[in-house]
C-alpha cells in the first residue's frame, strides 16, 4: 500500500501574491498565499492572481 505522505497533492488552492515595499523603503517583498486570500494584513499592496 502506498504511503499518502509521498502522494501528489490535489488539495492546494489557487496561488495569490501580494507585493509590498519592505520597511527599508528600497526592497520589495512578495507574500504568496494559496486558496484562501489574505491571512496577512496588507500595508502597501499590489495584488495579483496568478
Amino acid at each position, binding site marked *: 500500500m*502506498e504511503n499518502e*505522505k*509521498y502522494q501528489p497533492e490535489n488539495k492546494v488552492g489557487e*496561488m495569490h501574491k501580494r507585493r509590498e515595499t519592505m520597511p527599508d523603503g528600497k526592497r520589495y517583498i512578495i507574500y*504568496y498565499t494559496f486558496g484562501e486570500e489574505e491571512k496577512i494584513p496588507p500595508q502597501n499592496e499590489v495584488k495579483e492572481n496568478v
Partner: protein
Amino acid sequence: MSELRWNPLLGEWTVTATHRQDRTFFPPPGYCPLCPTLPGGFPTEIPAENYDIVVFENKFPSLQINPPAPAVEESELYPVRPAQGVCEVVVYTPEHNSNLAQQPVAQIYKLLQVWRDRFNDLNQHDFVEYVFIFENKGEAVGVTLPHPHGQIYAYPFVPPRMAQKVKQCREHKEKTGENLIASILADEKKDGRRIVAENESFTALVPFFARYPYELHIYPNAHAEALTDFSLDQLRDLAAILKQVLTAYDKLFDVSFPYIMAMNSRPSDGANYDFFDFHIEFYPPMRTATKLKFLAGSEAGAGMFINDTLPEEKAAELRRHIEH
C-alpha cells in the same frame, strides 16, 4: 563596492561585492531574520506575524537591479561592468526548526509554483540572461541562516557552467537529433542500476558521471525547458519525487543532510533552446556519515572531480531509503 570584473584567463566574470562581508552570520536564538515578526518582538526581514511562502530582495545582494557604478576603471585587458541583476531570498515556511524534506508534499508543491512564478517574472527583465534557482543547505556548504530558505540569482549573462551545458546539449542535438537529457534518461532507464525513484513525470537518478558520492539528478520524462513549461499535474509529480529523495537523503545517515540544490533552466536571453531540458541537480558534500568531500587540488585547481565511490552502489543505497 560592487562590480563585475572580467577574468581573461578563464573568459568569465567574477562579482566583487564587499558589502556581503557584513551579512548576518548565525544570529542568536530569537533573532532569525527569516522568522515572522511577532508583536513587540525583534523586527525581522518579514514584517508579518505569519506567512505561507515569502520572497524578498536579498539585503546583501551580489547583483542589484540598480547597481552602483564600478569602483574601478576598466581597461582593454580587464573589462568591468556594473553588477546588475537580481538576488532574491525564498523563505519556504515560517517554521524555523525545519527543512525542505520535512515539509508536506503540499508545501513543496506550493513552493514549486512560487519558483515558477519567480522564474517567469525575472525572465522578463531585459537585463537578465539567466535565472538560477538554488538552495544551500547545512553548515557544511556554508549556510549561515538555518531557517529553511533558498535563493534566486538573475544574472546579466549566462554563467559558465550553464553555458557549457547549453553547448553540450546543442552539439548533441546537432549530432544525433536527440535532446541530451532525453538520451541520458533513456540510457539510464535501460540500465536501471542508477535509478533512485520515478513517477509518471520525473525520474531521479545518480548519474553515470556523478562527481559527488551522493549526487542526484531529477529529469523530466518529457521535454520542458523551464519550470514554466510544466502543467500543475507535472508540478505535483515533481513535488512528490522531491519529497521522496529529500527524505531518503535525511534517512541515509539520520541527519539533516546538507546539499547544494541547483535548478538548471534554459537561458532567458530569448534565443531558441528546444534542445535543452530543465533538470535539478543535488551536490551533497557528505561522502560518509562522518566525512566530507572537499574540493581540493584536482577539483579546485584543475577542475577535475575525483569521485571515491561508485554511482551504482550509491544509487542502491539511496534507493533503499525511498518510501512509496
